[in-house]
């Protein structure tokens, strides 16, 4: 083999790794923005950890969800991750069509299981873009880590009353032996700060899947009796990301007053921690492990007078028949 050929062969992997087949782009902050009109007692329904898979009894589970969505009658539905697990394109199509069929705006973010299906990494976002009511604004070719980093401004006329940050808390991180849960990456938090600088600071809520380290800190303080302002109980270890980050502090600095996540199926606490609410969603289907007596959904009611504390958050438990 000639020397030139050897050099080309050796350089090929380096070349491939240094370039992406589709170059990453930076989009303006406004491209990640969705808006909804605000009204008093704006009701957000948080559905989490649906885990639709190739095993699910689709009709039975969707009947349960239908009942809950109709009785809640929210202004916005937010799916905080693990909507899918061990699924297929057919599962994704069916479930997203089902959510879309209620004609209620909905926001989707990823959990650690959503990409565990027989489809490519862009499939869910591509399908969401075809639905009528999805508010997702993310770009597969953007520089931001993750696939669902966008925000929803709740508008009163031309003014933003509240802001909802929808964040992809990503999936896994390889530690050399096994995969731990990933964290929200630094560039994603920087992106939130850019949003705040560009669009102004307003009271905001953050929705994502994997809880921050602070979820564990807060519960330890509850157990130690240092925090008394809380609701609910946790029944399992808080499965947080693989490392502690400054996400909580930086998000607090940009006006985030509430965090809403899922991931741990049998943890149900709402805790006021350093002036910020930290809330586990209520597992919304009986798929994989769960507490059969504690299935349902969570509602967050946003008021015109801007009062916000734990009374705005309600866990609704509905028996699964």
């Amino acid at each position, binding site marked *: 083999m000639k020397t030139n050929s050897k050099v080309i062969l050796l350089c090929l992997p380096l070349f491939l790794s240094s370039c992406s087949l589709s170059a990453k782009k930076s989009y303006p902050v406004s491209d990640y923005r969705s808006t909804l009109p605000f009204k008093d007692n704006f009701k957000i329904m948080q559905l989490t950890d649906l885990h639709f898979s190739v095993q699910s009894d689709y009709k039975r589970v969707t009947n349960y969800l239908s009942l809950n969505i109709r009785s809640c009658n929210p202004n916005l539905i937010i799916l905080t991750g693990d909507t899918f*697990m061990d699924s297929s394109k057919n599962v994704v199509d069916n479930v997203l069509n089902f959510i879309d069929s209620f004609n209620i705006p909905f926001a989707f973010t990823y959990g650690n299981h959503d990409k565990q299906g027989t489809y490519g990494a862009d499939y869910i976002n591509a399908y969401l873009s075809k639905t009528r009511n999805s508010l997702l604004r993310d770009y597969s070719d953007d520089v931001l880590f993750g696939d669902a980093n966008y925000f929803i401004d709740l508008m009163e006329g031309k003014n933003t009353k509240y802001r909802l940050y929808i964040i992809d808390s990503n999936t896994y991180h390889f530690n050399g032996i096994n995969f731990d849960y990933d964290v929200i990456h630094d560039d994603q938090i920087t992106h939130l700060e850019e949003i705040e600088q560009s669009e102004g600071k307003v009271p905001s809520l953050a929705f994502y899947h994997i809880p921050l380290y602070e979820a564990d800190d807060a519960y330890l303080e509850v157990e130690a009796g240092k925090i008394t302002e809380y609701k609910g109980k946790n029944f399992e270890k808080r499965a947080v990301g693989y490392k502690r980050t400054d996400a909580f502090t930086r998000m607090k600095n940009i006006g985030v007053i509430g965090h809403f996540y899922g991931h741990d199926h049998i943890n149900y606490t709402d805790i006021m921690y350093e002036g910020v609410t930290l809330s586990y969603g209520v597992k919304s289907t009986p798929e994989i492990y769960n507490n059969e007596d504690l299935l349902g959904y969570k509602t967050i009611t946003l008021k015109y007078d801007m009062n916000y504390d734990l009374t705005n958050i309600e866990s609704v438990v509905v028996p699964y028949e």
Partner: protein
Amino acid sequence: MNNRNSYVQNDVLNNLVLFVTLFVINLFLLYSGIINIIGLITDEFESLFIQLPKIILYFLPSVYLMLYFKNLYYKRISKIGAIVFTIVTTILLAFSLFLMIQNFRYFVNNYFSSYFNSYTPLDLILLIVILLSINIVIFVKAIKMKKDNYSDPLNPGTFSVYTKRRLVFILIIGVFSSFYLGLFVLDLSLISDVTRYPLEYVIFLGYILLPFINLIFYLMVDFTKKKSVIAYGIIGIIDVLYLIIFVFSLNSLEGFIYGTLNQALLLATYAISLPISYAVVGLILCVSIISVILNIKKFIKTNK
């Protein structure tokens, strides 16, 4: 009658074509079976009795194919063996049917909702019918034939190519490498993964294809011919190099570090996510490398 000059009468060729065709069809069934097993593990066996008929029925054809391979290339099954085989598999088929009837609502709900395998339970029923028909043919043939005649000691198998040890090795590696071949075919269609992580994608595809390449080499190698053994040795060297590259990539490339590629089959447990799929391929490659070393050592010893 075996006339090698006529493709119509060439049993060797016809059997091979039939085997390869069945093998390709079986890839999809094997893949579906493994997807359902992973689902069962991830939902902590909650849906055991619903998934069991799917798993049994998707995997059973592989057992039939293994038996067919054994008959073709090693030794025909004995009369008793054939009877036991048909009885055991018929019981499994009946058990699957029973579980499907017991969970009738689940299967019918999903079928009429066009959910996931909208062809389930039709595909499962089709599999039951086909396998049951095969069982009847095998059983009737076994009953009619005399014991000695059926085991055919003078002409065991059409080719009688492999030794027992080699056959066992082929069957074990064959199941896993076939699954990864199926995964390779599926992954070729995941275009968005190519554009996101081109290098990781190429390395990953190469990694899951390597067990099948090893299998082909192992099927073809003639341990009495020097050139053939050298070629087999080369694939062993490629295995070692690829394993080193892969382990290095796993710890250095973004697509691997964040487990972006092929999560469904990569992370087979829900809580502590071990890279089981990577480990299984690695294990197959290690076994193949050991096989290469041992066989080359044996070849050198016998040719001194």
